[in-house]
């Protein structure tokens, strides 16, 4: 993979009600060359994420008074904001994780997390942002067209807004139509070879993808489930 045209810095929005953590994250990512903005409340987060064009949002779940992280996430997605969102959560049960993904988050990191772990997530986003030189022509299968370079997807000519994870998943599935891809492969397609991720996250993203692409999401024609194994994309 060529990284020649990959930008080296991202605009990151940090949302956490704890001052020290905001400071630490700002410092850590600034040092990597990213530009970081940190806010404490849900309202500010919604306002800033809507106004500034961020490449990634690190969003805490518990934000004191006002909207919590899930609500911020949902609001942003309702505003058709597809910025990659990584939830920072203190809860590590499956239900809590799924709640974040359902709200539209791309991924979650459980506190206390290592900065290295968080950086690997951000790097995964970095690798894919901006136009790239090689092999980035559009793929068209059936009604779906995916343009890697412009990060655009259309269904029957109509543009569809996909989140970061949804786009990466679809791109991976469409790169080898008809081939069965298991959840681990799909996870790698989004986040690269970083730490272990919850494969169930894929199921949530796939469901969101179907809702956006399929005519009848409950009877998918494009993205098929292979029970117990994974998913494959096929021309209907």
């Amino acid at each position, binding site marked *: 993979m060529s990284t020649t045209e990959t930008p080296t810095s991202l605009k990151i929005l940090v949302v*956490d009600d*704890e001052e*020290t*953590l905001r*400071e*630490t*994250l700002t*410092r*850590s990512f600034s*040092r990597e060359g990213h530009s970081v903005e940190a806010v404490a409340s849900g309202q500010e987060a919604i306002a800033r994420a809507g106004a500034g064009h961020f490449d990634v949002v690190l969003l*805490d*779940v*518990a934000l004191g*008074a006002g909207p919590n992280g899930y609500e911020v996430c949902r609001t942003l997605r309702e505003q058709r904001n597809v910025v990659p969102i990584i939830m*920072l959560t*203190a*809860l*590590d049960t499956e239900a*809590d994780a799924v709640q974040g993904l359902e709200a539209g988050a791309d991924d979650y990191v*459980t*506190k*206390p*997390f*290592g*900065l*290295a772990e968080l950086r690997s997530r951000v790097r995964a986003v970095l690798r894919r942002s901006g136009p790239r030189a090689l092999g980035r022509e559009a793929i068209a299968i059936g009604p779906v067209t995916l343009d890697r370079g412009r990060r655009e997807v259309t269904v029957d000519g109509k543009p569809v807004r996909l989140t970061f994870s949804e786009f990466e998943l679809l791109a991976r599935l469409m790169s080898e139509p008809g081939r069965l891809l298991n959840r681990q492969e799909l996870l790698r397609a989004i986040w690269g070879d970083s730490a272990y991720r919850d494969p169930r996250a894929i199921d949530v993203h796939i469901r969101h993808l179907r809702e956006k692409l399929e005519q009848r999401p409950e009877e998918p024609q494009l993205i098929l489930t292979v029970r117990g194994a994974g998913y494959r994309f096929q021309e209907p």
Partner: protein
Amino acid sequence: MQGWLLGLRPRLLAALLLTSAVTLAVAALALLSPLEQRLRSDGESTVLTALGTARPELAEIAVEPATGRLNEAEARQAALVLRRRSQATLTILDSQLDVVYAGDEPTQNVPDYYGEARRALRTGKAPVSEVRDNELILAQRIKISGRHYVVVLTKRLDYVASAVRVVRTAFLEAAGAGLLVALLLGIGLATTLLRRLERLRDATRELERRGPEAEELPEDRGRDEVGELTRAFAGMQARLRRQEAARRAFVATASHELRTPLASLDGMLELLEDDLRSEQLDIEDARERATSARAQSRRLSRLAADLLDLSRLDAEVGLRSEPLELGELARAVAAEFELAAEADRRAASKARLDVHPPAQPCWAQADPGAVAQIVRILLDNALRIAPADSSVEVEVGPAEGWARLRVRDRGPGVPEPERELIFERFQRGSTTGGHGGFGLGLAIGRELATRMGGTLELLDDGFAPAHPGGCFALCLPEAQENEGSGSV
């Protein structure tokens, strides 16, 4: 199969059927046998009455003087009189027990009534009655025109048997119908009752299996005991669910409060480590980070202490109950704070702490450790929000049968909607400006106070109407005079 027999339905059915059957049997016994006797004695008394009323007429029958005994016409006349009144077949015998009249029957065909007739002659006026072959035989000495005769009246008692038969048949039919109704009623009752009980049983098993998440029991409007049981169960389930929700909220908040400082601590140390490794160490920056890391770890240990206090409270660890002097205790706790303030260089800008001890010693019955902890919580809160150079006042004294300690500050006070909320776990007042605490102190304080039979409340009055501020009052039971220390 044995299990089936032990079930509620067969037992209920058996009980209903048995009750109906026994009731009917007892009723039948109580009715049928007396009925038969009654009918018989009725028959007897009819005949006897007839005899009695016939007497004067019989006496008037003129007997032909020649023979001195009844000739056939006279006997027929007497018989007519008797028959008209008694509706019975009759035979008349003379005192030698010769048949003088036998109705239309030829004399030799007359059944043998000598035994009864002889006894009637012997007993005199009292009648002799006997039932033989379902026939009532009644012999009575009578006087016809001055001489003794015996009249034997016989009456078939078939009507008694048939009446009893009719009643018995009616009874059996009623019994059959009754048992059928009992059976149907029993099945219906048992089925609905069983269905409701089974629903309750399933719900209980579900609760056992899945905990408070289990599906809610459909409402049972029955006003009987099963309905009550079902409602009690639903109430219990709702309570468990609320507790579970509260527990979850607590765990969620506690883990956020614990893990967020851990995350920043970890991050700060990681940055520091990076700096040290890169050998481009900015000493000032590193010092700042170390200070900040220490502050975080102190915060964490405070939280750990609070959480431990809470779990100890939740585990209901026993509290002591002994007399303690509240004024002395307030002074001691205030002294701790003053020592800490002296150690802190920024103390100069902090609020003062004024303790007003009571004029008389104020004895409370409580756990000294717990009371000291509550006072610490109140003072810590007050000092944290009090403006610089203002004073936080601690006042001790008796009040309406309580030993009371009040802590007043000149801070921003507590807005009306939060007055009760601030006593809940992880609830911080909005006017604290995000200073320090975890929102656990007042929750712990109130729980402790309640445990000791006292109260911890936010009073309406601050210093004066012109000055806002919070005023918290801890009320504890007063110690009884001359009471030694003990434990609960």
